[in-house]
């Protein structure tokens, strides 16, 4: 069975600083990986996804993530954050690509001025 661990429940950073949100997964087969963002009182929005190919994936709003198969990780990064990036971020994995996602516990990113 697949599982996802987001290593940090909360990450505070200052505006324009870089940030990394960590995600590790466990699966016995190849996986598809996703990062979603949830702004306060809003639904989930897909930031980026890894299906195959290049291990460096670029998403919306300047975010990127790198798939590392040997370390079973899919960390999310942004070189310079804005106040508007304050939100909760979820890492998710799918073993079959059939829409059944397993989510991590979420990381609350708070960007301070």
């Amino acid at each position, binding site marked *: 069975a697949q599982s996802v661990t987001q290593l940090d429940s909360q990450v505070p950073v200052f505006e324009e600083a870089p940030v990394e949100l960590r995600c590790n997964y466990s699966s016995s087969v190849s996986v*598809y990986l*996703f990062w*979603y963002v949830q702004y306060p009182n*809003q*639904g*989930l*929005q*897909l930031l980026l*996804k890894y*299906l195959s190919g290049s291990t460096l994936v670029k998403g919306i709003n300047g975010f990127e993530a790198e798939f590392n198969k040997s370390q079973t990780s899919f960390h999310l990064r942004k070189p310079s954050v804005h106040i508007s990036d304050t939100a909760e971020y*979820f890492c998710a994995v799918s073993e079959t*690509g*059939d*829409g*059944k*996602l*397993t*989510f*991590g*516990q*979420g990381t609350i990113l708070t960007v301070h001025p």
Partner: protein
Amino acid sequence: SAVISQKPSRDICQRGTSLTIQCQVDSQVTMMFWYRQQPGQSLTLIATANQGSEATYESGFVIDKFPISRPNLTFSTLTVSNMSPEDSSIYLCSVLQFYEQYFGPGTRLTVT
């Protein structure tokens, strides 16, 4: 990208009653999903709803508690039956389209 709407957006219900949540998609999709997000928790898949077949429930979820309908390729309903305070959650509808998963805005349910 698929655009998903849900009704109601929020509701406060008394224990023992039932609530039906509607999910409408702006395009035809084969697979629709219902997720639950309990307060301060992550999302958990309740069931998969395909048009023309019975919904498939994940471990810990049963049809008697969460009956689902899928009458066509753009619409689904989830009913939360015989509610208790533990059912207070955000319920999200989701669809799969071209390997991308889209989510509705959610229905925030509070059971008193």
